[in-house]
């Protein structure tokens, strides 16, 4: 692309939007959570999604995933409108994304290995040997030791559960990865490792990552782009520098508060 025209906005318009949310309205009862919201996620990027607590970050994620009904608007993933898909097409599409829930959502009665193999068994016809090899590979890829494979989720620590759940969400080699507060509940070192891991996996597997997060460190280190949600709308999106330059009071408080300053100070 011509260097003179490569401002962020124009560069975006030339990239392929892998998730495209348009004019979405979601509400419960009288309360409107998402009010005519628009958002694009481009192929190969890590998008950090920030917003006030209870502001609808998780609701947007769940709406894209089809877990929350929307009142109006469209969600396009891989260029397909999710409302137009038949049941079969939809489940084929769902194989192409992976979701890491906030609490991991590992099946508590299955071992870690069985958890990872669950989507494989349901969707593919593989030999037991390959199933095991894949499970061990995924476990090692997320930075766990092979011996967790035979453990039950209740025998794991919080950080290990996150990693094991990440391994399960990566089981089918998805193209898009949804992460709901991946570093919450991890110690700073663990959180830093997790960020690193997401970056490595994203490069290794060519993932597109949609990450709901509150972790300023994650926003600084791994996110290519950040979108901020307030009052049911995306009020700003861009790189971390763009965010810092924003004048919106909530964004100023978020990116220039004491914690943000500490992060920046540490980075200098």
């Amino acid at each position: 692309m011509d260097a003179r025209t490569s401002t962020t906005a124009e560069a975006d318009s030339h990239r392929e939007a892998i998730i495209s949310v348009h004019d979405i309205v979601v509400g419960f009862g009288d309360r409107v959570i998402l009010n005519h919201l628009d958002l694009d996620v481009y192929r190969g990027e890590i998008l950090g999604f920030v917003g006030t607590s209870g502001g609808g970050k998780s609701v947007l994620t769940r709406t894209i995933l089809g877990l929350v009904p929307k009142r109006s608007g469209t969600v396009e993933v891989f260029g397909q409108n999710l409302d137009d898909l038949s049941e079969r097409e939809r489940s084929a599409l769902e194989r192409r994304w992976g979701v890491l829930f906030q609490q991991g959502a590992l099946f508590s009665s299955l071992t870690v290995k069985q958890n990872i193999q669950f989507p494989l068994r349901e969707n593919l016809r593989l030999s037991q040997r390959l199933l095991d090899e894949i499970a061990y590979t995924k476990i090692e890829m997320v930075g766990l030791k092979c011996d967790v494979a035979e453990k039950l989720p209740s025998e794991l620590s919080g950080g290990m559960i996150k990693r094991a759940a990440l391994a399960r969400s990566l089981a089918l080699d998805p193209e898009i990865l949804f992460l709901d507060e991946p570093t919450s509940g991890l110690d700073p070192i663990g959180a830093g490792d997790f960020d690193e891991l997401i970056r490595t996996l994203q490069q290794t597997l060519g993932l597109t990552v949609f990450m709901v997060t509150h972790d300023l460190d994650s926003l600084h280190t791994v996110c290519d782009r950040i979108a901020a949600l307030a009052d049911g709308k995306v009020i700003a999106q861009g790189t971390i520098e763009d965010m810092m330059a924003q004048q919106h009071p909530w964004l100023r408080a978020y990116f220039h508060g004491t914690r943000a300053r500490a992060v920046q100070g540490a980075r200098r």
Partner: protein
Amino acid sequence: MPHASLISVHSQDDLLTVAGRGAWTSEYADELEQAVDDTVSTYAHPKGVEIDLAAVERMDTFGALLFERLKRSWKDSGIEPQVKGLAPRYTVLIEEMGRTGQEPPPPARRHEAILERFGHETVNVAADAAALLNFVGASVAAMGRVLLRPRSFRFTAMVNQLDRVGFRAVPIIVLITFLIGCILAQQGIFNFRRFGADIYVVDMVGVLVLRELGVLIVAIMIAGRSGSAYTAELGSMRMREEIDALRVMGFDPVEVLVVPRLLALIIALPLLTFIGSMSSLLGAGLVSWGYGGITPEVFLNRLKGAIDMDQFNVGMIKAPFMAATIGIVACLEGLRVGGSAESLGAHTTASVVKAIFLVIVMDGVFAMFFAAIDM
């Protein structure tokens, strides 16, 4: 080669050229695995191997893993395969695969053999009995503390539980006991009629319902309906560490959670037993009238002669004891739930099964007791 669409092999002067092509992705992983295994077993000892990946259009973890298997199986027999044509975007993935898979897999979880399980279960039964007695003690102690400090009693919680296990159980209890009364009367009339003794059906129904069936049916229903709810509630509270939260705040979970539930059941079950027995008698009376031609007037007169206060008391005295059993078993099982959803299910089942078993055993013990004191 049968899998030529994914791997083609060309052999010349002991120099093997393995060319991959197509999509080495999860969809074709099964075929690719067979192709890899076939290639390796067919050409176990070549002099040199060259793996050409130029024609592989797409590759994911599955393809990369199988590529690694292909490479390693020759490496193990001392041949270093030459790799060429790997698209640069896959180098990171291939390197990652090379890094993993070095550790031996852990031993699989062992399943217990039948004798071993039998032994464990036997020990468990003994431990269960001890735990139950322990819990009875803890509950009584907690109630004692509440008696000493009546202000600490959670009255609102108890009323709430009373509403859930008592008031809201009324419709289903009335319906079931009514139907049982109907069936008893119909069967009684049908069989007694052969001896010309239809009228004795009133005696049978009266004694049976008031002494045994009323309280037993209601207790079993409540064990299934409310006992399971207690176990599931306390169990999920345990899974979410709510019980631990209570404990670290200085509260005794037994006092806060168990005592109100237990008292609610002890109050509700006798009331439900009374309602159930009456509804049973009503059902029996209606069927006797419609099916047996025994008018309500005759039915009531006969009933008055057949039963006395003792019959009624026997049923009612048993109710609170059965309630306490159901409540204690249900709460104990709830507090023993472990971390998994499966454990919650297992303990809820155990709660209902044990409660019903103990209720019936208790009924038998009471029958002997009342016979001994001529009631």
